[in-house]
């Protein structure tokens, strides 16, 4: 009660002072938290510049904070129920969103009433939907592709067409041929990253949970098939083991390995070696063998913008997201060219940049392909415990790679997670 009265007291004080300087009353200031100074930050700054051009009285500040640091800050502040100092808009990775939405439902502003979210890729909207309302404006898509060295594949007698509409088993055979002819491993994999397994599983429209949120591991056919494929990759002796992100990206950017399956955001990293221009291609992800509903389309990473309900400027914040992020096709062409960011606004693919072909990838219309695949990614419910299951899977990857039983691994994953989430 005392706290409340002091708050009113200071509010009254502010009012008195505020009355004295009425001139600046209409100006509003938005703060945004996001990570990656080369990707999200400049994209958001570009969006901010476009909005402030239309609304000169709005000032938008974009703060670069590491993703883990944002999670840590949100977790602490929302648990402490202290909203002072929170920004107006924050970026959250999709597979982490439900944890916050379900844990702190009142902290975020539902956006589905104010913004037409049908304009975005459905799987992105589904990731931020809770209790019938959707809470985010989708940003970058982690639409997956198989990036490969076309020169290595040509040396083994394969053309780009040979990678279209194939299964993982067929890809493994190609990988073996490439290794026999060129001496290069096909993939490099890190035991601390289960992204490939998740991407394979989502390509068949499945995640770790049943529709009512129960853990679904033991009888999860796509997950089992993904782990078996993972095991086959190692058994075929076409994988270079690496440790850490820099070694992981280093292996394919240096030409050590022939291919990498990843999200579209990896394009920037691959194009970071301009001397390899013309030597790369992108194919859709192979299909899982023998799985009903298996597709060539999946997602790896990607994040979306959320508005805090504690924000004093939430109307402006929502209008900003609606005007630029849900409406400005030209803006999406810019961030595609400058940051390699594939947005989730479906209409953006009609723009010129999406239609352009890329000489780095042998003149293929890479972005148009990505955006066509984007609309076909199966929606899944990422649930609240993705991180727990993910680390349980990581713990099993070394033994699966050594040829250990996949059924036993599934059981171990199930046991560990059920114990954790009780």
């Amino acid at each position, binding site marked *: 009660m005392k*706290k409340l009265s002091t708050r009113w007291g200071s509010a009254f004080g502010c009012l008195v002072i505020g009355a004295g300087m009425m001139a600046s009353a209409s100006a509003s200031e938005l703060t945004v938290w996001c*990570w*990656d*100074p*080369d*990707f999200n930050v400049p994209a958001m700054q570009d969006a901010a510049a476009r909005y402030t051009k239309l609304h000169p009285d709005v000032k938008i*500040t974009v*703060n*670069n*904070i*590491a*993703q*883990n*640091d944002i999670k*840590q*800050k949100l977790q*602490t*502040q929302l*648990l*402490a*129920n*202290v909203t*002072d*100092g*929170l920004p107006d808009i924050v970026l959250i990775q999709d597979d982490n969103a439900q944890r916050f939405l379900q844990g702190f439902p009142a902290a975020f502003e539902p956006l589905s009433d104010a913004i037409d979210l049908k304009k975005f890729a459905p799987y992105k909207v589904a990731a931020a939907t809770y209790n019938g309302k959707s809470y985010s404006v989708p940003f970058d898509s982690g639409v997956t592709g198989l990036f490969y060295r076309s020169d290595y594949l040509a040396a083994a007698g394969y053309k780009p067409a040979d990678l279209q509409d194939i299964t993982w088993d067929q890809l493994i055979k190609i990988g073996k041929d490439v290794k026999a002819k060129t001496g290069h491993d096909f993939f490099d994999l890190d035991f601390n990253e289960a992204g490939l397994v998740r991407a394979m599983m989502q390509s068949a429209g499945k995640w770790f949970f049943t529709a009512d949120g129960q853990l679904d591991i033991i009888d999860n056919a796509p997950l089992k098939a993904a782990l078996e494929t993972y095991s086959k990759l190692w058994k075929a002796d076409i994988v270079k083991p690496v440790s850490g*992100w*820099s*070694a992981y*990206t*280093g292996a394919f*950017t*240096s030409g050590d390995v022939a291919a990498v399956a990843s999200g579209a*955001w*990896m394009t*920037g*990293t691959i194009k*970071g*070696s301009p001397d390899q221009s013309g030597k790369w291609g992108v194919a859709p992800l192979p299909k899982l063998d023998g799985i009903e509903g298996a597709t060539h389309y999946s997602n790896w990473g990607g994040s979306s913008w959320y508005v805090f309900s504690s924000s004093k400027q939430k109307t402006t914040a929502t209008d900003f997201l609606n005007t630029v992020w849900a409406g400005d096709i030209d803006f999406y062409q810019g961030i595609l060219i400058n940051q390699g960011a594939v947005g989730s606004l479906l209409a953006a693919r009609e723009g010129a940049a999406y239609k352009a072909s890329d000489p780095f990838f042998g003149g293929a219309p890479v972005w148009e392909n990505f955006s066509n695949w984007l609309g076909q990614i199966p929606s899944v419910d990422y649930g609240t415990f993705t991180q727990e299951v993910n680390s349980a899977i990581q713990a099993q990857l070394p033994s699966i790679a050594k040829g250990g039983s996949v059924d036993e691994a599934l059981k171990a994953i199930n046991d560990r997670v059920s114990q954790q989430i009780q």
Partner: protein
Amino acid sequence: MTGTSKITRYAIVYSVLSAATFVSIFPFYWMIVGATNTSAEIVKGKTSFGGNLLANIERLLEQVDLGRVFLNSAGLAVAGTLLTLLVSSLAGYGFEMFRSRIRERIFALLLLLLSVPFAALMVPLFIMVSSAGLANTFVAVVLPSIASIFIIFYFRQATKAFPGELRDAARIDGLREWQIFLHVYMPAMRSTYAAATIIVFMMSWNNFLWPLIVLQTPEHKTITLVISALTSAYTPDFGVILVATILATLPTLVLFFVLQRQFVAGMLGSVK
């Protein structure tokens, strides 16, 4: 016979020491070499000096208001160190010098609190700090750390070597208790203070989690928060990160070399 066994012994000792030296020196070498190379060269594992140092520095300055960040970190570390030393050494001195029936129990309780991880205290501490209106202030960063149990413990142990006769003599000369602490104890424990300075300065200079939680605006960022933000890129620029890391390492390094002799003496627990 003894000659050869001596040689073997030396060979073993020196190879073990060389290996240990390599393990401790190499990260430093790697950091310095990395700062002169491009990100691509670092990823490929290049271990020789390159010509990219200026470009890396330039890009760091583009992204970060370095002066501001250093001022923040230095201000926090200096203020934090001074206050922690003052408050915690006073507590350590008090625990050893003043007898009381419950003294040992309170002290045991303090030591028990050492085992509570900071992560468990973070949320309640944040609620306290923000309801005091201190969120996003430097005071909030420094305040919770100035009564450091570890430093209290360290000073209490060191005070055991402080001769009680000195205190008695000072009393006879008519000094009050606080004057004894200020004019007799503090100068006599110089090397203990020096060692504690290095430890506390390093702790507050490298402090990450609490400043991360409590500081909100870019004007308040410290060097550790800046490095963390730099590493968050999908394609991190390792050259720039290593330049920032070198800059972040320098102050503690300089402080250590300045206070090195006293540090060793302080660790040995001598009173001059």
